[in-house]
């Protein structure tokens, strides 16, 4: 495909000279011309320009301003600019290069500049621009794919207020547009089954694994006789049955907390998830569900335990993944108690408005990250399940 070079100079003779020099050494290029900065902006808006050779002293809008506008623009900033000016002041050279010009030639051009250096630099600039365009297009496609994948992940999330016995409140913040955190909540046979899981790693691979976790979970709760630990054990066994890479690689390894509410009792089993927190409405107190177990998808023969906690109407369970406090430090596990302390301070908000509580707790951790000069590096998923009052 022919590439287009825009020559911006108010002197006709200079534009012709540059055109002559480049026509001799470059094939497959066409030229556009502009006599001031305004014309440059009009040209880039209407034509696909691959390189601009820019004079600095021009009427209406000079080259300095034109360069600034081009480099500030989201679409045109990618176009390489070579300055060709009679100004030989070092500050001018420094400033234009700082502003984003890729090179600077001083007029009049020497024979070497004309015959060798300028044509080669233009050739290189066109090549780099072509590669940058390919990268930009790939990036656009990846962003589009991420957006589609994220829509898919959002479709999979449980919808609030769909249940007879409980209300659910969720907040999900994937780190790369799509993430490996997963939660689900199902009402079945007069029971509520729910699960929060966190696939190792994040991004598209983790998101794909998370969608499979959902299938395993839904399959696992089909048998009404199974208790949470048996469901987890069954899911773990299925991973080894269905995936031949299971146990050898960490593509499908995750932590999970699985709960089942039957009547007014919560039955649960934990596979490496941070301890959920329960809010007792009658006493307005919080406590942690501190039971734990092995990771899912690593070893085929592992067993989990089911424990039970009686609940009352209005009591609620707060589940979250470690992305909330994690920065990749082992000491992050202190983050579990930090979540409890912050939740305890915000329990009034939790009682009044669980959605606001989830927003607040995320905000507090944003502030904590900011003060430690860290940031969210992982997906964050939070869910509150409240027994209807």
């Amino acid at each position, binding site marked *: 495909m022919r590439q287009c070079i825009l020559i911006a100079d108010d002197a006709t003779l200079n534009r012709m000279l540059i055109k002559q020099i480049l026509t001799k050494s470059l094939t497959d290029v066409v030229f556009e011309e502009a006599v001031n900065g305004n014309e440059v902006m009009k040209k880039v808006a209407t034509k696909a320009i691959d390189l601009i050779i820019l004079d600095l002293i021009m009427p209406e809008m000079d080259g300095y301003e034109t360069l600034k506008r081009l480099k500030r623009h989201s679409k045109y900033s990618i176009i390489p600019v070579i300055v060709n000016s009679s100004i030989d002041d070092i500050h001018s050279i420094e400033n234009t290069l700082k502003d984003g010009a890729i090179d600077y030639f001083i007029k009049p051009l020497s024979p070497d500049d004309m015959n060798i250096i300028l044509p080669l630099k233009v050739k290189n600039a066109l090549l780099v621009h072509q590669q940058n365009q390919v990268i930009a297009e790939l990036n656009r496609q990846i962003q589009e794919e991420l957006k589609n994948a994220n829509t898919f992940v959002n479709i999979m999330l449980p919808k609030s207020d769909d249940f007879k016995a409980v209300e659910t409140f969720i907040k999900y913040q994937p780190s790369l547009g799509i993430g490996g955190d997963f939660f689900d909540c199902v009402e079945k046979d007069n029971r509520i089954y729910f699960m929060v899981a*966190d696939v*190792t*790693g994040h991004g598209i691979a983790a998101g794909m694994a998370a969608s499979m976790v959902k299938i395993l979970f839904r399959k696992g709760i089909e048998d009404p006789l199974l208790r949470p630990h048996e469901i987890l054990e069954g899911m773990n066994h299925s991973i080894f049955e269905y995936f031949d890479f299971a*146990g*050898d690689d*960490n593509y499908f*390894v995750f*932590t999970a907390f699985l709960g089942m509410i039957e009547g007014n009792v919560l039955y649960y089993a934990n596979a*490496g998830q941070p301890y959920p927190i329960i809010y007792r409405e009658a006493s307005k107190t919080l406590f942690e569900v501190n039971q*734990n*177990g*092995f*990771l899912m998808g*690593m*070893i085929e023969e592992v067993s989990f335990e089911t424990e039970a906690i009686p609940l009352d109407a209005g009591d609620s369970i707060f589940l979250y993944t*470690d992305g909330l406090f*994690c920065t*990749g*430090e*082992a*000491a992050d*596990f*202190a983050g579990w108690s930090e979540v409890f302390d912050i939740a305890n301070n915000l329990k009034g908000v939790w009682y009044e408005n669980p959605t606001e509580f989830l927003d607040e707790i995320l905000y507090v951790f944003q502030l904590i990250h900011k003060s430690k000069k860290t940031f969210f590096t992982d997906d964050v998923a939070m869910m509150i399940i409240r027994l209807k009052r």
Partner: protein
Amino acid sequence: MKAIKFVIQDGLTANNVTMYKQQFERMIHSESQYEEMVLDLAETENIDSVGVTFVINVYKRLKSLDKHFRVEGASKDVQSLFKLMKLDQFFEMTD
């Protein structure tokens, strides 16, 4: 019991695990006369979930080779994490 030591010198996190996997494989192929491998975590401050899966994979690989596996020098935080995930059921941790 003849032991060989695998020292983790940096964070045991996702970005380093591929390198550690290669080092581990090279080590078990070049050494044959040993009965135990000690994973030395004394210099490791950072560990994430991918790092945890690496340790479990090392344990599993050595078990398949009929070798003993032990973690040594892990900080209190790392030890608590491993205990929380019930890894102490599978291998020993020493100071």
